[in-house]
Structure formats: structure tokens, C-alpha cells
């Protein structure tokens, strides 16, 4: 070691110090020590200058001392930083070599250079160099591992931060969406309420529309009994007049007087009957237009069918004078009363009859069958605790594709403006939901349609 340029080791050692400071990151790990280490250039400079100017063994001695001190410092730093494994191994690597150097200098100083004598071949120093070098290598690979780990940790942290910020933005987005959804829900709720209101109005409109269809029929129905009331009243006053005249005669005819009296009495009864008939029709009309109370009462379906069949027929006739149809009724002679909302079931029947008349009218208007006799029939029956009302027409029939849709609200095959498309939908609701019954349809295109109302008794 102590040969050639005696100060080269010092320069090398100084270089190693500067390199080691960086490698072990001393400015942050050991700032105070590092400050001192940065000043090592001063003694190194002195040695190098001495080496250049003076030269000789003294400089070599200083040079060895400097290197030994550097190594000892390195070993101390390694010990001080032992928690940091690469520094620890650097320390362990340097410590024996430092001991060797310092010991060498001290022995030389004492004049007994035993070490150089013993290690004249340089084997021990070579061994120390190898030791130090391998531990440097160990330290380096550990440093690399640690750095890679730190990098991984950093990346993981970054990833976590990224996820965190993503979570934040997601949360924000979710909040925004939630607010938007809440708003939409509110809007939908409002719309639903509006739809419900509209539905109510439509049901009322449908009721009024069917009332409109009825009006003419009702007028006709009322006019007949009213005509009878008027006629029988008039003719009765004539009879009374005749009776008075008869009684004033000198020769009275008791038989004729009795006949006149009997007629008068009968006429008064007829006036009463027709008056009641008119009142009944008006009552029915009012009931139809009033909102349903939904109260079930024992109802005579035969009477209800008869009433609404006539109303529907005359209603259609009033609009279309050339229309005529045969009405057939086949009422079960003994039909139990059904717990029903008469007004609601009346609407169902009116609807079925109106449709039936419409169907036979359409077939008649097609005018392809000369002998065609439009016929609408209604039959009632009772079996197995169930009352059935069967409304049949020999009209156009319902095509299969249409049959599936007829109970859907707003579905209509009538020209626009003629049907609300609610009639059968409401009828279905009334029968099924309102009365726990069933409303069934059977139809053959070109042959006719049969609607069956089934009501539990």
C-alpha cells in the first residue's frame, strides 16, 4: 500500500467517502455526521499537497492513517445506522480493514512493524479487501432490494391514493346520482298522481260517454210511458165526462156506467204504472251518472239485463234510425239475487250490449249477406253457486289477434272519436276486482261473439 504515489489512497478514500455519503444517503440519515464528513477534503488536501511537495514515507504513513480513519468512520457510520441494513453491512465490511490499517499505523509508529512483517505476502490484506468488497456487494444488493421495496411501497401508496381519490369522486358521483334519482322519483310520483287523476277523469268521461249513448235511448224509454200517462189521463177525463152525461139521462144504462167506471179505475192504475216506469228510468239514469258508492246490494240480474238491453238498443237506434235487431232474452225463472253494485254491473251490461249491437250493425252494413238477421241475446242461468250472464251477438266477431287486447285500457277498434277504449277494461275491472267474478270472451270471426259474466253467489 505504501508505495508509488503515497497520497493516492487518500484521494481514493476521499472519493469513497463522497460516494458512500450519497449511497447511504447520509445527508438525510445522519445530517450532523455528514456535515463533518464533507469537511474531510481539508485533511485529504493537506496530505495530497504534502505528498506532491514532500513525498516520502511520512506521507505514506499519513495516507494509511487517513484511509484507516476513513474506514473506521465508515464502520462507525455503519454501526450508527445499523437499523439500515446496507449501512450495517458496509460497517461490518469496513471494520476489520479499518482495524488492520489503524493497527498497522500504530505498530509502525511504535517502531515494531509486526503486521507488515507477518503479512509480507499481502494475503491478509487481500482477504480483507475481498471481505470488504463482498460485504459492499451484499450491502449493494440489499440496498437494491430495499429500494425496490420502497418503490413498490411508493407505488402501492400512490395506488391507494389514486383509489382513495377515485372513491371520493365515485362517492361524489353517487351523491349526485342519488340526488338526481330522488328528483326523478319526485317527478315520477307527481306524474303518477297526475295519471291517477287523469284515470279518474277518464273513467268519469267514459261513464258520461256511455250516458250520452244512453240519453237518446232514455228519452225514448221515457217518452213512451209519458205518452201513455198523458193519453190515459185525457181519455179518462173523456170517460168521466161520458159517465156524467150517462148519469144525467132519464133512462140510465147501469151496464155502461159500470163499464166506464171499471175502465176509469184501470186507467188510473195504468197511469200509475207508466208513471213509475218513467220514474224508474230516470232513477236508473241518475244512478248511472253518479259516482259509484261501491255498496253491494242484493241485485236482480234478470231485471238489470232487461233494463240495460233496452237502453242500449234504443240508444243505438236513436243515433242510427235504420238500425234494427232482434232482441232475445232467456232469463232463468229462478235466479238468486247477487250481492252486487247494480250501478257498476249495469255499466258492464250496457257496455257488452252496446258492443254487441255495434258488431251486428257492422256486419249488417257490410251488406254481403241478404238474409242476415242481426240478433243480440242475453241469457241468465244459475249453477254451482254461480250466476252466469251470457251476452251473445251474431255480429262480425273478433279476430284472434284482437281478442287478446280487448281488455286492455284504451284499446279500441272503433274509428277515432267513437270509442274511448275503456269500456271493456273497466268492465273487466268491475267484474273481476269489484265482484270477484270472471268476464270471458269467445268469438268466431264472421259468426259472432259471446261474453260471459260469472258471478259467485
Amino acid at each position, binding site marked *: 500500500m505504501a508505495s508509488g504515489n503515497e497520497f493516492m489512497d487518500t484521494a481514493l478514500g476521499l472519493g469513497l467517502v463522497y460516494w458512500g455519503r450519497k449511497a447511504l444517503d447520509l445527508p438525510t440519515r445522519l445530517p450532523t455526521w455528514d456535515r463533518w464528513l464533507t469537511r474531510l477534503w481539508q485533511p485529504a488536501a493537506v496530505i495530497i499537497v504534502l505528498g506532491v511537495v514532500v513525498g516520502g514515507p511520512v506521507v505514506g504513513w499519513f495516507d494509511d492513517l487517513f484511509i484507516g480513519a476513513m474506514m473506521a468512520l465508515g464502520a462507525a457510520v455503519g454501526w450508527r445506522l445499523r437499523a439500515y441494513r446496507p449501512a450495517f453491512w458496509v460497517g461490518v465490511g469496513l471494520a476489520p480493514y479499518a482495524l488492520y490499517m489503524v493497527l498497522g499505523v500504530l505498530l509502525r509508529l511504535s517502531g515494531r512493524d509486526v503486521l507488515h512483517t507477518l503479512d509480507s505476502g499481502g494475503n491478509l490484506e487481500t482477504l480483507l479487501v475481498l471481505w470488504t468488497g463482498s460485504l459492499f456487494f451484499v450491502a449493494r444488493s440489499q440496498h437494491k432490494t430495499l429500494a425496490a421495496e420502497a418503490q413498490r411501497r411508493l407505488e402501492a401508496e400512490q395506488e391507494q391514493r389514486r383509489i382513495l381519490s377515485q372513491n371520493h369522486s365515485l362517492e361524489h358521483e353517487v351523491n349526485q346520482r342519488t340526488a338526481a334519482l330522488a328528483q326523478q322519483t319526485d317527478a315520477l310520483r307527481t306524474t303518477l298522481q297526475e295519471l291517477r287523476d287523469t284515470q279518474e277523469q277518464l273513467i268519469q268521461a267514459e261513464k258520461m260517454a256511455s250516458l250520452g249513448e244512453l240519453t237518446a235511448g232514455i228519452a225514448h224509454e221515457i217518452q213512451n210511458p209519458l*205518452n201513455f200517462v198523458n193519453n190515459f189521463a185525457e181519455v179518462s177525463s173523456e170517460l168521466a165526462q161520458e159517465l156524467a152525461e150517462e148519469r144525467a139521462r132519464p133512462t140510465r144504462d147501469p151496464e155502461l156506467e159500470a163499464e166506464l167506471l171499471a175502465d176509469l179505475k184501470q186507467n188510473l192504475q*195504468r197511469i200509475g204504472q207508466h208513471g213509475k216506469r218513467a220514474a224508474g228510468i230516470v232513477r236508473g239514469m241518475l244512478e248511472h251518472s253518479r259516482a259509484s258508492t261501491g255498496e253491494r246490494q242484493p241485485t236482480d240480474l234478470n231485471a238489470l239485463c232487461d233494463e240495460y238491453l233496452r237502453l242500449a*238498443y*234504443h240508444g243505438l237506434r*236513436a243515433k242510427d234510425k235504420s238500425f234494427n235487431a232482434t*232482441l232475445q232474452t232467456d232469463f232463468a225463472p229462478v235466479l238468486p239475487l247477487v250481492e252486487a253494485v247494480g250501478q257498476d254491473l249495469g255499466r258492464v251490461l250496457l257496455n257488452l250490449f252496446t258492443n254487441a249491437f255495434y258488431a251486428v250493425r257492422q256486419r249488417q252494413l257490410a251488406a254481403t249477406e241478404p238474409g242476415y238477421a242481426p240478433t243480440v241475446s242475453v241469457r241468465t242461468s244459475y249453477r254451482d253457486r254461480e250466476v252466469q250472464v251470457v251476452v251473445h251477438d251474431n255480429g262480425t266477431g273478433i279476430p284472434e289477434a284482437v281478442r287478446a287486447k280487448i281488455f286492455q285500457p284504451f284499446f279500441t277498434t272503433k274509428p277515432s272519436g267513437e270509442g274511448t277504449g275503456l269500456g271493456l277494461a273497466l268492465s273487466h275491472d268491475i267484474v273481476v276486482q269489484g265482484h270477484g267474478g270472471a268476464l270471458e270472451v269467445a268469438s268466431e270471426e264472421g259468426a259472432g261473439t259471446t261474453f260471459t259474466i260469472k258471478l259467485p253467489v
Partner: protein
Amino acid sequence: MKILVVDDESDVQVLFEQRFRREIRSGALSFSFAFSGEQALDYLHEHHSEVVLILSDINMPGMSGLELLRRVRTEAAPPPPPRVMMITAYGDDDSRRQALALGADDFLTKPVDFAALKEKLLALPA
């Protein structure tokens, strides 16, 4: 003079019998009644040429008055053909035109003015 009244309301019979009781009693007029177009045709088939006048309602279930009129006017019957008066609650021009086109002799609207009807009937050549 025999008159056939066709109306689906049965009280029409009582009404006519009372309204025209003097004429019936005196034998000036005689009434028969049918309660549907079909019944009226059957009656006419059985009583050929007895009926001088048919008074028919138009609006009846089954065969309408107009259909009855058409059948009376198209079916071969021994002369003289009966006169036909149509009566309807719907006194619209359309029905009137249709009735007259089918060969009705007169067209009355409900409520029937019995005084006027009586005059018309009595004015007819027996």
C-alpha cells in the same frame, strides 16, 4: 173499416179501444192488434183483404215497422192493397222519407194526436 194496429207496447190496445170507443160501439171502425211485425204479417196472411188500414210503430224489436211496410208492399196480396200509416217517436225527415219511399200513405209522430187521427180515419173512404 178494419184497422190493424202494430206496436210492441200492449197498452196501446187499451188506449185505442178507449179513444175510439164511440166509433167501435157504432161500428164505424174496427181494430185488431199485433205486438210485433211478425205477428202483423201472420195476421195479414190469415185475414186477406179484410184490413183496410195498417197503423204501425216503426221502432220495434225484431222486425221493424219499415220492414213490415216493405213486406206488405212487396208481397203479392189480393187487391185492394191496405193503406199504411207509420208512427214513430223519432219524427225525423230521414225516417219519413224512407217510409214514404217504401210506400207508406202517411207518417205520424208520437205522441199521437188522437183527435187528428180520428178525423183522418173517418175521412178515409170506407
